[in-house]
């Protein structure tokens, strides 16, 4: 039996399939479709201090080999999250990550301070990169200083791992990852969605009410792989790679490029059972590559010749 586990700091993930924030609800929505105990990990929808209505609909649109979304971080806020969602997760084992969102460093700090005493939380993913809010996509992880400022604010507030979720739009994603490492992050997740636009030619209006949305799905996979590889070369932090993973092959390609684990997003929206299919495919494929563990495959990309 091959070893599919990996670790971020002291936290061990039983397998590399982690469900990505915003594409799996709070978790209980998936209970009718999959045994959540088989997942490598789960990351919640972004949690703000206060509830948020999100954007008006339409919020989603299919694009070539992908989709565009502008949910706008609709959420129940940290108080209801603690009271209503965290008790649900006490019935399941996988590492639970809280995606922490905010409009200023104080927002992020309030969420971590409020939730950190809860024993079910395993790690925080700091959303430095949601492209769907009104700013036209500007996000802290475009800038090393802003990335550092938020992470340094949070670092003293918790002993649990902090994972910085990065935007693909920074001038240099590896520079941002390095800044995150310097500020005390335990890992990085990349990539968040690309800013995109879809046009309805008939009405000459955008397909999404919000105008811009985030592009995800197989269309972004080559760019995501390139960024994972560059960040792997630059920093020593574990990487949760994501961007268009829909098969076991895709998953293992991210590991070869340097990811420790991966996140599945759009594939779960397409089919709620896809994450477990991807895991099974990867575990069946791994021995055929001559590997007993994911660790042997990690960062093993060779020069062309």
């Amino acid at each position, binding site marked *: *039996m091959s070893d599919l586990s990996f670790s971020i700091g002291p936290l061990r993930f*039983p397998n590399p399939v982690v469900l990505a924030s915003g594409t799996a*609800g709070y978790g209980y929505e998936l209970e009718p479709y999959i045994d959540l105990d088989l997942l490598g990990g789960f990351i919640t*929808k972004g949690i703000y201090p206060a509830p948020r209505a999100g954007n008006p609909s339409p*919020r*989603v649109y299919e694009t070539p080999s992908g989709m565009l979304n502008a949910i706008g971080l609709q959420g129940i806020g940290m108080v209801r999250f603690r009271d209503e969602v965290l008790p649900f997760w006490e019935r399941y084992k996988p590492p639970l990550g809280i995606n922490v969102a905010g409009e200023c460093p104080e927002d992020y700090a309030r969420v971590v301070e409020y939730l950190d005493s809860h024993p079910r939380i395993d790690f925080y993913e700091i959303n430095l990169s949601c492209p769907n809010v009104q700013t036209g996509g500007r996000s802290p992880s475009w800038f090393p200083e802003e990335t550092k400022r938020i992470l340094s604010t949070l670092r003293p507030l918790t002993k649990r791992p902090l994972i910085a979720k990065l935007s693909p739009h920074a001038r240099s994603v590896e520079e941002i990852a390095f800044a995150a490492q310097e500020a005390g992050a335990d890992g990085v997740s990349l990539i968040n969605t690309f800013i995109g636009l879809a046009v309805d030619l008939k009405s000459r209006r955008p397909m999404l009410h919000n105008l811009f949305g985030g592009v995800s799905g197989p269309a972004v996979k080559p760019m995501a792989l390139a960024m994972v590889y560059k960040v792997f070369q630059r920093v020593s932090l574990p990487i949760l790679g994501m961007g268009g993973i829909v098969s076991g092959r895709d998953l293992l390609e991210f590991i070869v490029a340097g990811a420790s684990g991966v996140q599945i997003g759009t594939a779960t*929206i397409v*089919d709620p059972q896809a994450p477990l299919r991807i*895991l099974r495919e990867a575990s069946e494929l791994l021995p055929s590559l001559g590997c007993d563990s994911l660790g042997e495959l990690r960062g093993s990309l060779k020069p062309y010749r």
Partner: protein
Amino acid sequence: MTGNNFSSKMETMDKKGYTPLEIVGKREWREDFFSLFFHSPLLTSSLRSGHFLMVRDPDAPTLLSRPFSMGRLFHDEGVFELFFQVVGKGTESMARKRVGDTLSVLGPLGNPFPLEKPGRILLIAGGRGISPFLSALPVLAESKRDYSLLYGAKTARTLLFRPFLADFPVSYRTDDGSFGQRGLVVDGLSQEVDLVFACGPEKMLERVALFYKDLPTEVYLSLEERMGCGTGICYGCARKVRTDRGVEMVRVCEEGPVFEASRVVWDE
């Protein structure tokens, strides 16, 4: 525990998932309307008027599934109908499917119309909004309810299913007067009913809600919104609804698609 000590059987045990279903029949109507028929005794017996299904063509270049209300239910054969109009790439690829091909289907999803509520019932269908009522009508007839259907379309050519509907109390309206009374369904609403179930274009639903606003009639509407997942995880299909907490963005796929009209907030 290592991650791979499970069988593929464990993945789906007691869990609901997409199922490949064979197309056992196809009917091409006019004006880009199609019906596909699927054999599934399980789905046919569990689907209720107002439920929806997510449908995906694994061979199509499209990625996301599309939501559909089901049409007629043929209980003796274990066959259900999917009635749709070609409006984009997803429905285009479905319309090209033939008998013997398969599509991936997930359902039943959402909350159905509460047909069991007591009282006189008026069903209101606009255009392809007839779909959920094709399964409701036999249920209401069987249980000897006091009910009728008001069915409107642009023209006689798109007023479909008339032979099937001949067995039920239906009044027809067309915009151009080519069949039934001339005019919109919203011009034919009756106050003399206790329950209204409506499905059709947004403008029609809004006018139905407005008509019954100050009357004791309970009104339920089947709403549409562009969907991502259909399973409640992506929050892509949310719209404004009054809840115990005030006005919230609520998912059409999970909390709907059938909503009490008095709770729906209409955009200015």
